[in-house]
């Protein structure tokens, strides 16, 4: 086939990242990547993804724009984070709207849910699932392809967004981020992807469990609301009822503080916000209470990336574990599901 002929060759599903996944240089693709391709093109074409993307892009622009405005007030002389000016782009706000990482922590789950809540049940209700299953593919290709495709879309979106914001910041403030800052930004992006992947998997799980897309969307959103809004209230309620008296011995007060914090960390949103804070503010040395003895003699300097990663390692593993558990549950539920025609 000449190049000219190749160019004329029919492109069937436009908007796919085609060709990327053709194997062994042949014109046929492995069925799994073919399905991923199709899922990606479905996502990219869907109105709901476009809406979520615009929403996230707009809020990012707004938060960074405001951060740019209040950047000069944010730097105080002697601030240990003074050398991490660039990261302030993502954390500073003038108080009118929350900073970048808080917004993403809020909208990211919605994006994950919107990509996953109808992934399986819509195939069932459209009657395409049994047709798909009659093709010579393994059953788990379907759920794996759904997950991988959504993950690729999410990764693409947040990588672009993070790098665009970085580029914009460079143009506006005229300072290049140090290599460390760049690595921290990349780590932040990976963290966001991981966090959204958790919600994606939860939504996929509900899409297997519930026949109606609306039920699974509602269930996912209910979990999201509970985790982001009500769980915090619940924890503070519990905290208030078990609070020791002001004059309790310090050991008891520390134990109490730890209990309250650990209760809060049972939900992924808390893990995410702990991790982002540590990554974006290198001066954060611990996420728990510190005694005067521990702080005594410490030099008020920022931590290196490696040290910050050490601090958030438990949070990170927790998030990964939650994501894997959700996926494992969905996988099991899907493989055991009896698929009949609609």
């Amino acid at each position, binding site marked *: 086939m000449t190049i000219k002929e190749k160019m004329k*060759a029919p492109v069937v599903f436009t908007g796919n990242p085609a060709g990327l996944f053709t194997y062994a240089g042949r014109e046929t693709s492995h069925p799994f990547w*073919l399905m991923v391709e199709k899922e990606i093109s479905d996502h990219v074409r869907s109105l709901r993804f476009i809406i979520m993307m615009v929403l996230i892009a707009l809020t990012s622009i707004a938060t960074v724009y405001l951060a740019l405005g209040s950047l000069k007030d944010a730097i105080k002389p002697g601030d240990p984070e003074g050398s991490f000016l660039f990261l302030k782009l993502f954390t500073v706000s003038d108080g009118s709207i929350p900073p970048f990482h808080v917004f993403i922590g809020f909208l990211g789950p919605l994006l994950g849910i919107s990509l996953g809540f109808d992934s399986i049940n819509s195939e069932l209700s459209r009657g395409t699932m049994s*047709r798909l299953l009659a093709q*010579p593919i393994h059953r788990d290709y379907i759920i794996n392809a759904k997950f991988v495709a959504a993950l690729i879309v999410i990764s693409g979106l947040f990588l672009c967004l993070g790098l665009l914001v970085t580029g914009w910041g460079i143009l506006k403030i005229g300072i290049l981020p140090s290599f460390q800052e760049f690595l921290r930004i990349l780590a932040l992006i990976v963290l966001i992807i991981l966090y959204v992947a958790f919600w994606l998997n939860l939504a996929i799980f509900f899409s297997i469990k519930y026949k109606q897309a609306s039920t699974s969307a509602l269930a996912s959103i209910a979990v999201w609301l509970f985790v982001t809004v009500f769980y915090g209230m619940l924890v503070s309620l519990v905290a208030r009822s078990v609070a020791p008296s002001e004059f309790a011995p310090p050991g008891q007060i520390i134990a109490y503080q730890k209990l309250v914090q650990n209760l809060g960390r049972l939900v992924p949103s808390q893990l995410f916000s702990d991790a982002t804070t540590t990554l974006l503010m290198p001066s954060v040395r611990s996420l728990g209470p510190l005694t005067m003895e521990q702080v005594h003699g410490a030099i008020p300097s920022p931590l290196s990336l490696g040290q910050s990663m050490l601090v958030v390692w438990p949070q990170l593993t927790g998030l990964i574990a939650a994501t894997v558990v959700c996926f494992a549950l969905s996988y099991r539920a899907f493989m055991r599901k009896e698929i*009949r025609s609609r």
Partner: protein
Amino acid sequence: MGAEIIRLSGLTKEYGHQAVVRNLDLTIEKGEIYGLLGPNGAGKSTTILMIMGLTEPSSGSIRVAGVDPVRYPVEVKRKVGYLPEDVGFYDDRTGLENIVYTGRLNGLSVSAAKSRALELLERVDLTEAAHKRTGTYSRGMRQRLGLADVLIKQPEIIILDEPTLGLDPEGLRRFLSLIVTLSRQEGLTVLLSSHHLQQVQQVCDRVGLFVAGRLIAEGDIPALSKKLFPNELIAYEAGLHRGARADADWIPMRSRAADAVRHAEGVRNFHVEGDRLFWESDTESGHEIARNVIASGIDLTYLNRKEYGLDEIYHRYFSTVAKS
């Protein structure tokens, strides 16, 4: 024909304690059109799902083109095309895109899938709608697209689950004749399930009657009626040619003809209505009686032996079951 291509033996499927398919033995030969017939919930779809390897049987064995679908479902799906009941497509894609996707999942290259898809769309008469979204298709068009979708993998066997559901009479006629043509041209084995008797009767070489998870009778239509109603009499109706004869001539002639019938062997329940004679017989004696009538000096306009259609078979079977 002759070589068996699907063999089910001792097949049973239970959900909890309820058996949906019970101890089913069935053999389908290469190149035939076999109809699975039965009311809703008789276990037809479950049987089909087990043949496709989409559901595991509780016990019994299945061989499809020599392959065991329980152990090698992907192998079976390569050889068997399956059109599910009420098939669905990706509504925001065109008909062509939908079946090209299926073709590519079956290992065809983009260009091969596309050329084969266009060829198939022409055969199922959807060339004009090929570039329209399937969301705009009518029921009949979807069903025909489903047939193209099944054929793009070049299967040895096609299995159609309730393919005639919801089609209008004209669409139905076209769809069934399409199946017959395709089957004969390509030497395809076709297994179709239905509860519409009339249609199955038109196209199937053999049918199996399925009730409550059991195959109660099998064979072509006459064999089936013989098996289900062994003591049934055969009903005949004959028309006599009167021409322009006056009553005075006609009545003695008619009674001679009537006698020729009435005294033949095995005739019962004989009666005359105008120019027509009715009787029942326990033997296949129509040809002899016709000869006797003509020998008596009257021509026959027609002689009709009433055969039991599936409707009759079906209805009678269920009324006898209900009585017992």
